[in-house]
């Protein structure tokens, strides 16, 4: 007579709870020592998991990817800003980004992906 009626998440059994063992992936941004990565590692991990060819990824790899993504955002923002400056505007527009993507070789992988 197992209590199967209702919500169906059978967590009533006592067993080793996996939650206690897994360290939380997100570092609080308020602590000064933990400001290693602002992007939540859980979201980065979700992106990595989306690749069907990837089997496993270590924590360090996820962390570096998060940090690399931050560096990438900084880089592309600055490059796009150069274009806006030429137009004497103080607001970055979508077209500034498109120009930067066309102008900078390293951003070639982005072509066609942002539409």
């Amino acid at each position: 007579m197992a209590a199967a009626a209702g919500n169906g998440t059978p967590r009533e059994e006592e067993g080793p709870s996996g939650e206690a063992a897994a360290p939380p992936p997100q570092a609080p941004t308020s602590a000064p020592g933990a400001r290693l990565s602002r992007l939540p590692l859980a979201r980065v991990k979700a992106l990595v998991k989306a690749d069907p060819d990837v089997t496993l990824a270590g924590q360090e790899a996820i962390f570096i990817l998060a940090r690399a993504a931050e560096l990438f955002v900084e880089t592309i923002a600055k490059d796009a800003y150069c274009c806006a400056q030429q137009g004497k505007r103080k607001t970055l527009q979508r077209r500034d980004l498109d120009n930067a993507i066309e102008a900078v070789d390293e951003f070639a992988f982005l072509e066609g992906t942002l539409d």
Partner: protein
Amino acid sequence: MAERPEDLNLPNAVITRIIKEALPDGVNISKEARSAISRAASVFVLYATSCANNFAMKGKRKTLNASDVLSAMEEMEFQRFVTPLKEALEAYRREQKGKKEASEQKKKDKDKKTDSEEQDKSREEDNDEDEERLDEEEQNEEEELDN
């Protein structure tokens, strides 16, 4: 799931903050530009993951590690990221080591206090954290990724 990988966006608030800190004061960013940058960052992660995975496969490993990602950066012509990433990795490793030592200290204290009954229970939990090698962290990843 019918979600495309590009739909997995990174949090807007964080992206906005990173952009604002990279740009001079007084410069704004339109919503469209910000959301495009956010999507670009997701595409970047996907592309970097794929490149890194190639390196892992070349090394006949199933687990992506930090050096795979660094190699991917060079492959993608983002060499300028390599040095700051290496520094960040050092700091991250130090922090992780500090955390591990702290939790091991807690374990020692726990073992001293508890009775033998509880020792059995905590041994089951501690099995996950017991090993010192980094492989253990990857095994944890394994449990989570297989879901």
